[in-house]
């Protein structure tokens, strides 16, 4: 099962190589692209293997399961691995053209690989302390990425980011310590097994609560979201796009995993909490987006609002709810990245992210308008885009489970999202160009930027159009999440060293 280590080894190897060719940007570009392509191939071949034996497990160092660190790939983890590799490719290409040379030489691509390393590790690990380490890898890379270039507003945003995330990390460690003191194990399968067999203790429940608060901070859910709009809009938009697609989604993924393994047997307690948090996250995100006039801010607030939908799927914890949540995560990764990329292009052509300064895009650059239109429609949930299907499955799941309130909130928020997207569309694209607007820059635009943005838009469109073919995999993933026993058996019964 060596292949499970490749998503970690490839970025690590790339980091080493990138540090060697630090001075030569051309080599850095080629290496970064090759690395991401290799990761995509690896992720796809893991997915291919899942057909044969449902869950892949590998034990690092050959230590048997509850003692060593286990790595596990089920459908959920693999789908997300593929999604991250798939969107990392356009982001790397976009960054080559978009981000200035100084930042590129400052280690941008090394940090990208560091971020991917952390994300891949967090998807695959089955050990809570190892998970903590991957979170730290992500935190370090993302913190340097936020401050890279050290513009004043970047530093201001980064302080909030760092403080909030360090707080989250310390809660995370505290929770790990509590869990270990109660159960004497850090292996996620072993913990779940012990909770199921022995039942929960009050101290263990507080540990799980701490876990959820820690991941809530990372995922920017209500009421821990305020660091996100403060920090995300500050770095160059390619970096913002990467953050929006990975960091918060890992937080949600881990919540999903933990809910499936440690909390779902206590549904009566957890479900209302998750629903309340989900509903408030949706509402707050969308209302704040409605009151902003900066494209980056609006999109950042929508990240928060859409985290609420994913949480709703976790709370439903039904086949269609979980599959919908997972589909929604992937949809959001793609659409949000595409939207940020289009916003970057708007900035390039019109010199601003401020809606008051923009206008006339449709007249001057119709292609650009199209590049923004697709992800915007997708985020708002207009058929036949991926956003529509994601919301459809969630709403169907909500009605199926009889959770009327949260479902109605989801629908209302969806309409408000549409309002936000129409606002951007009207202000930036439709209305005549502002007189005070900055003159469209005539600087030659790197074709790589447009190609990357176009590719991301096509991915978004494709995800929506192929939903009937791909949805089986999402349902498969949801079925695995619904049955944590599969996870436990896969990890604990696979005691053979990796050699055999």
């Amino acid at each position, binding site marked *: 099962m*060596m292949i499970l*280590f490749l998503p970690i*080894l490839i970025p*690590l*190897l790339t*980091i*080493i190589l990138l*540090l*060697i060719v*630090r001075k030569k940007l051309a080599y850095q570009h080629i290496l970064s692209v090759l690395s991401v392509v290799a990761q995509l191939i690896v992720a796809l071949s893991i997915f291919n293997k899942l057909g044969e034996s449902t869950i892949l497990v*590998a*034990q*690092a*160092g*050959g230590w048997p399961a509850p003692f060593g660190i286990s790595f596990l790939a089920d459908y959920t983890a693999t789908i997300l691995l593929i999604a991250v590799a798939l969107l990392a490719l356009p982001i790397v290409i976009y960054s080559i053209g978009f981000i200035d040379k100084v930042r590129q030489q400052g280690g941008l691509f090394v940090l990208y690989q560091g971020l991917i390393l952390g994300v891949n590790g967090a998807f695959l690990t089955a050990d809570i302390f190892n998970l903590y380490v991957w979170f730290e890898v992500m935190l370090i890379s993302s913190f340097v990425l936020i401050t890279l270039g050290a513009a004043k507003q970047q530093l201001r945003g980064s302080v909030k980011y760092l403080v909030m995330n360090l707080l989250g990390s310390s809660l995370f460690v505290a929770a790990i310590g509590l869990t270990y003191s109660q159960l004497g194990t850090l292996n996620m399968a072993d913990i779940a097994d012990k909770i199921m067999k022995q039942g929960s203790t009050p101290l263990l429940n507080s540990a799980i609560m701490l876990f959820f608060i820690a991941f809530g901070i990372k995922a920017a859910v209500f009421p821990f979201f305020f660091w996100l709009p403060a920090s995300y809009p500050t770095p160059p938009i390619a970096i913002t796009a990467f953050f929006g697609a990975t960091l918060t989604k890992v937080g949600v993924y881990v919540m999903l995993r933990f809910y499936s393994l440690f909390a779902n047997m206590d549904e009566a307690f957890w479900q209302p909490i998750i629903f309340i948090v989900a509903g408030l996250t949706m509402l707050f995100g969308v209302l704040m987006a409605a009151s902003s006039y900066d494209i980056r801010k609006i999109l950042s607030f929508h990240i928060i609002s859409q985290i609420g939908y994913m949480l709703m799927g976790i709370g439903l914890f039904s086949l269609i709810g979980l599959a919908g949540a997972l589909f929604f995560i992937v949809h959001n990764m793609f659409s949000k990245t595409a939207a940020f990329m289009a916003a970057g292009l708007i900035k390039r052509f019109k010199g601003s992210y401020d809606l008051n300064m923009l206008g006339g895009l449709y007249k001057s650059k119709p292609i650009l308008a199209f590049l923004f239109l697709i992800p915007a429609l997708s985020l708002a949930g207009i058929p036949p885009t991926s956003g529509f299907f994601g919301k459809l499955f969630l709403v169907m799941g909500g009605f199926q489970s009889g959770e009327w309130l949260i479902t109605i909130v989801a629908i209302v928020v969806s309409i408000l999202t549409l309002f936000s997207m129409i606002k951007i569309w009207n202000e930036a694209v439709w209305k005549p160009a502002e007189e005070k607007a900055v003159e469209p820059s005539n600087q030659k635009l790197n074709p790589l930027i447009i190609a990357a943005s176009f590719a991301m838009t096509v991915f978004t469109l494709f995800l929506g159009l192929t939903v009937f073919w791909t949805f089986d995999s999402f349902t498969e993933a949801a079925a695995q999440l619904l049955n944590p026993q599969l996870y436990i058996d896969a990890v604990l019964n696979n005691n053979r*060293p*990796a*050699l055999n």
Partner: protein
Amino acid sequence: METEILKIAAKHLKPFLLILSLFVFYRGHNEPGGGFIGGLMAGMALVLYAGAFGVEEAKKLRLAKPLFFIGLGFGLALISSLLGLLVGQGGFMTAVWNQWQFAGFSLKLGSPLLFDLGVYFVVAGMLVKVIFSVMEEDV
């Protein structure tokens, strides 16, 4: 801040700190110590020197840029984690052990030591990189 005491102390402590860092690093093989602490000590030797003589002087003492050491450290860690596969007696990150005998000494070395050496370089490189960047800032 220019003080003669600090200068002399830094000058003479530097080799001791470096040797001590290697000792602590090797001691970490079986006892408390290890690459992290050793790397911190090695980095501190240079940082102390920079504190006394200034960053520019200290930079002349470096064998290579800190980023080189960070890369080297990652490389060593990666190699040590793959050794288990190459030698064929285990999987990824499996330790490989070997015993050397010479002149009455018996030395048992394994790939964990190589991994630790990687940690040593990463920590030392990172420390020097970070602290030098900050020290340069306020000049």
